[in-house]
């Protein structure tokens, strides 16, 4: 389906600032495509981000957009959604933004099952500040602040969201652009908190330091390691080694916070009216 770019992008702001071959553009396109295919009302959809290369995305999207402080996008979005539950609220965040400084807001929104769609442009690195390690940088990888290789364990963001009680968590990559679009559609449609771990490549800082010389090489890395979720469960720990599951990893139903709160308001106002 051809994408009516002018409808969704602030074309006057293009081309965007991202480096050649940066995966963030592919994730962004997947989001736009998902919005288009779902026929979301562009006047009732708000896009919120924190700070980072990824977080620059809203500036190119022709919606109500909010570029907040580093790590806090979900908290700002919480206010928007609670104040106007009829809006679709989509959060665009980076692995540093969502999982380092913003980790607490992520797990709390997941716990509350607030109807937000959070899409993490996960490139395993702090792109905007030129390549420091993030909580997603694989052990042993190089970054400007891990000159001897990353010493810490990385998060598995979907596991984290599930551990926090999230009702929807999924993963895909820029290589799997089509799947990514579909997953984002499913995430937006999910009533409740939905998290998408969108693996993206930063050729400029992650690739260059880690001998992944081209964007395609980085995407090949995704291609080689991704395992469809339905196969993942059947794999032994040894088979899983060096691989990761893609697809929808958890999807359950639970009361959504703005609905629950709306009911309370209704109840109390009726009671007050009696």
């Amino acid at each position, binding site marked *: 389906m051809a994408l009516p770019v002018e409808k969704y992008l602030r074309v006057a*702001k293009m081309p965007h600032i991202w480096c050649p071959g940066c995966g963030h553009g592919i994730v962004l396109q997947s989001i736009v495509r998902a919005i288009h295919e779902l026929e979301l009302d562009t006047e009732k959809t708000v896009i919120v981000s924190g700070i980072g290369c990824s977080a620059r995305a809203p*500036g190119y999207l022709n919606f109500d957009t909010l570029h*907040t402080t580093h790590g806090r996008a979900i908290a700002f979005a*919480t206010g928007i959604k609670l*104040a106007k539950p009829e809006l679709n609220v989509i959060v665009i965040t980076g692995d540093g933004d969502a999982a380092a400084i913003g980790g607490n807001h992520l797990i709390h929104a997941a716990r509350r099952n607030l109807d937000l769609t959070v899409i993490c442009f996960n490139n395993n690195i702090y792109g905007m500040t030129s390549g420091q390690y993030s909580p997603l940088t694989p052990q042993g990888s190089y970054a400007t602040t891990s000159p001897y290789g990353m010493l810490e364990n990385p998060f598995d963001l979907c596991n984290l969201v599930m551990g926090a009680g999230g009702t929807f968590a999924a993963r895909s990559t820029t290589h799997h652009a089509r799947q990514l679009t579909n997953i984002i559609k499913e995430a937006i449609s999910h009533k409740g908190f939905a998290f998408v771990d969108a693996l993206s490549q930063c050729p400029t800082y992650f690739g260059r330091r880690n001998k992944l010389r081209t964007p395609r090489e980085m995407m090949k890395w995704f291609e080689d390691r991704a395992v469809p979720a339905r196969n993942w469960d059947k794999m032994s720990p040894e088979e899983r080694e060096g691989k990761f599951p893609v697809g929808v990893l958890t999807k359950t139903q639970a009361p959504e916070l703005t609905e629950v709160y709306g009911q309370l*308001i209704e109840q109390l*106002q009726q009671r007050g009216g009696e």
Partner: protein
Amino acid sequence: MIKNQARLLQGNEAVVEGAIAAGLKFFAGYPITPSTEIAEQCAAKLPAAGGTFIQMEDEIASMAAVCGASLAGAKSMTATSGPGFSLKQENLGFAVKGEIPCVVVNVQRVGPSTGMPTSPAQGDVMQARWGAHGDHEIVALCPSSVEEAFSLTVEAFNIAEEYRTPVILLMDEVIGHLREKVVLPSKEELVVKEREKPSVPQGEYKPFAMKQGNIPGVPPLAAYGEGYRFHVTGLTHGEDGFPTNNPAIAEKQLKRLNEKISSNKEALVKVEEFHLDDAEIVVFAYGATARSARKAVNDARAQGIKAGMLRPVTIWPFAEDALLKVKAKSPKAVIVAEMNLGQMVLPVKRVMGDSVPVVQVNKLAGQLIEPEEILSAVKEAI
């Protein structure tokens, strides 16, 4: 028996009454002594008023949620005390930069750090002005009574909405926890202001326009979901809200941001002048301390001393003009009484210059300054 019009309200409760009267529709907070009653009252009262209360995971998130809700069109508030106020600074700066109307209550307790959580102080006055990084003006109001806790909350919302700016309601534990007899104004008596909405077609809306708007320098503000599809960022931006690195545009916008407050001081800065006309000794005091000062002035007068009080109701912007008027009358001394080591005394000294001696009365270990302490400073200065 028949009730009269009056009620007994706690300062913190009065804030919530004032906020709801002013149209509060969203409160996000995180409990902290001595402000917690504000959150608790909001939790109890907001839903019936059609608003939403949420206890966020921390103060940072609370301040963020308040900004988000305000951009979605809801009058929004948060409340905290020193430690939480410190945490809010980054997002408070975002609200300043994004020109997002909201009210931030700080009920001051003794610092630094955890300090004395249940004891009063006025140690965050300078922080209210300078706590966030970067150049910015701020509006802060400082109630001296439960009645003012109500009325200044309404005023805080009015200023926030009219000037598109966060407004700080800077209380102290004494006023926050004090229960006092108050008569609340009726709906008709209340002046409640709403933010100005854009009058231009959707495609032409510039959320940070230089010249539009009722108040010079304050552009109208659309709400998310109304079709204006506008962008807000903490980066330095142009009239359209998009980031810029053009120093000329940046300078213009940063100046407008500051001047919308600094050049409207006349409208914004309120003071109470008490026996100032012929005062030879002027006590400068605010918040709960002003109540002791008032008694001290009365007692001094009773003893034949011409004392008076200047009370900044608006604590920021600084009441420079009122002080210049005081200076013009060459009082024998200005006594600055505050529950800290000496904070507002600094700008007072700056304005008084070399001609008028400035005397300090300070207390910093969690006790309200007593009238006698001020009185004896008055007597010494005469």
